[in-house]
């Protein structure tokens, strides 16, 4: 469907009549091609508008992707100098040392912080969303309950991240009295993982053929056994894809962490209390960027480069898994 070539009337005219006599695709000289193009597009006002429209759309597409390269060039030109540099807090030290006086060292605290926040979020968020998706896909018929849950997941996906931050502050920090830190930040992120994982897991489960379930049930297996031994097992790559995509999303989130995770220049040492205050890569980028001290800006660029590379890698792996394994099923 996607790759099917669609030709309008003028495309046919791009190939001269005599070329069809030869064997195989004939070589058309560039000059002939250009002249046919010119002839086609100046034939009437309509054809000329067609050409202008095409050029305009091509420019739109160029403008759409231009920011990507501008950002990549800006971030990597400064960032590579830090990541491959040899000064204090540069090179490998950028990832392994804590910041010293005047924030001169590396950003190990931020990388460790982001990793531990993602771990807490994953431990809390993955089971809830995967089990929820399994329930609504395997145990309910299409109806009010299912559409209500799906709608809730869609709304949850659309809620601004800063509202999640305010919610985390009100519920986890205040009402549950966890205090700021690793747990509060991680649990806030866990709420943000729910919609992505829920919807992708649902898609993956839906792609499992009904005949597999029926075969298992016909052999006398209970629904519970069928779900876990047959359905979830064959939908597993899709579920992993969803989990990875959700991680890719929450790793870059800043706003929910501003008032829930606190900030610190060291790795967290405990789960609750003052020792659990934790930095994260995005928040550190924010702080370093708006800092008036100019030597912090290259570090922000390098952290942004690292963050982008982490997110891209996660997305690439997720894409690879979904292409490699989901094809096999059908």
């Amino acid at each position, binding site marked *: 469907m996607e790759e099917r070539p*669609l030709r*309008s*009337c*003028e495309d046919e005219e791009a190939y001269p009549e005599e070329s069809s006599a030869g064997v195989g695709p004939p070589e058309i000289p560039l000059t002939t091609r250009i002249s046919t193009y010119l002839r086609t597009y100046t034939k009437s006002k*309509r054809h000329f508008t*067609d050409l202008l*429209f*095409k050029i*305009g*759309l091509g420019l*739109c*597409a160029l*403008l*759409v*992707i231009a*920011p*990507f390269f501008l*950002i990549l060039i*800006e*971030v990597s030109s400064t960032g590579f100098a830090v990541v491959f540099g040899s000064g204090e807090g540069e090179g490998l030290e950028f990832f392994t040392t804590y910041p010293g006086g005047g924030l001169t060292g590396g950003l190990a605290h931020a990388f460790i912080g982001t990793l531990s926040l993602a771990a807490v979020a994953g431990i809390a968020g993955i*089971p*809830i*969303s995967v089990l*929820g998706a*399994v*329930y609504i896909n395997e*145990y309910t018929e299409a109806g009010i309950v299912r559409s*209500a*849950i799906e709608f*809730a997941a869609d*709304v*949850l996906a*659309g*809620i*601004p*991240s*800063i*509202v*999640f931050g*305010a*919610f985390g*502050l*009100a*519920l986890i920090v205040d009402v549950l009295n966890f205090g700021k830190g690793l747990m509060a930040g991680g649990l806030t992120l866990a709420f943000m993982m*729910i*919609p992505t994982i829920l919807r992708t897991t649902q898609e993956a489960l839906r792609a499992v053929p009904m005949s597999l379930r029926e075969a298992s049930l016909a052999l006398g297996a*209970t629904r*519970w056994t069928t*779900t876990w031994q047959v359905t979830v097992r064959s939908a597993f790559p899709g579920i992993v894809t969803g989990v990875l995509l959700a991680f890719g999303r929450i790793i*870059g989130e*800043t*706003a929910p962490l501003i*008032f829930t995770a606190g900030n610190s220049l060291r790795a967290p040492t405990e789960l609750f209390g003052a020792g659990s205050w934790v930095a994260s890569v995005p*928040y550190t*980028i924010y702080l370093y*960027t*708006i800092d008036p001290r100019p030597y912090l800006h290259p570090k922000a*660029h390098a952290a*942004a480069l690292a963050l982008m590379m982490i*997110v891209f890698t996660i997305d690439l792996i997720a894409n690879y898994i979904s292409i490699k394994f989901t094809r096999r099923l059908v």
Partner: protein
Amino acid sequence: MTFDEKDQAYEIDSEMEADVGIFARLRVGIQNWIDDIRYAKGPARKDLLGRFILFIPAVASIFTILMILLLLVYEATPIFAHPDGGLGIIFDSTWAPQLPDNPSYGILIFIVGSFTTTFLAIGIAVPLGLGGAIFLSEFCPAQIRTPLKMIVEMMAAIPSIVYGLWAFVVLRPFMDDAFAPFVQTNPLTSWMPWFQGSLKNGYSLLTGGVILAIMLLPTVVTVSYDALQSVPGTYREASFALGATKSETAKQIVLSAALPGVGAAVVLSLGRAVGETMAILMVTGNNFGIPFTLFDQCYVMTSIIANQMGAAYNRPIWRSALFSVALVLMIMSVIFTLIAKLFIRWGLKTRGMS
């Protein structure tokens, strides 16, 4: 029992089934459950218990939404009940909660700021993104379509803080050094009322709108691209057969068939734009005032929460005013999601596709 009696009993039964209220049905359901668990043995019992346990995470998303709404309403109640506050704060444009006597909690400037940046961003992103999507779907050679789509997907994956960093380091100086002097000295554009005012270090409504537009582009492109792709190829062929050119087909056939999907794309990106925090926080200047030109500074709803929630943590009324802003944001995002769903339903109804 005669046949008649049986018939009658059956009729009564079906009548009862139709008439029983939700509570009676629930009671019967629960009774069945308890009976099932009581008499089930071995694997069957495990099956039932598993089903029961799975139900809890399934309602977690509904529960989360309700909890967010409840908590926001609970936290925002003090400001609406306070003599300095009330519902009038939505139309009050003075924000001065830190004053010891006579504090003021008007949130109008944030709502106006959010709307102006959002509409500016939509105005830039929708035409560009739609054009890009039409190019990708209708005109793009197959060899460069996959890389283009990959780039757009990667743009969607870039964290907002990286966009913010770029806007702060590149876009802001560009606006200050190149764009503003160019449009303000050029006789063609210098008379325009929206180019008046002086730019302070590049912090402006325009900078915020542009970076927001860049962040919306991937959403607009992917959602409209999917909508355009779902238009059957036969429509295009029919149009070509009638002698229409490619661009006429794209404009009048494909685009109008995909209109609901494009509408959904616009509404979804509206929701994204209103909720975006970090990038816009760094470049709009955060000045308490209503922007009148593109070069004025502004303050959006997400920024005020991000900037002041820490300071207001222990001042109940101030904090409550910030939560009322969060409540407004939440309600807006729910409304946008609803409208997007309606667009998709409209598409299903009138076009038979999503």
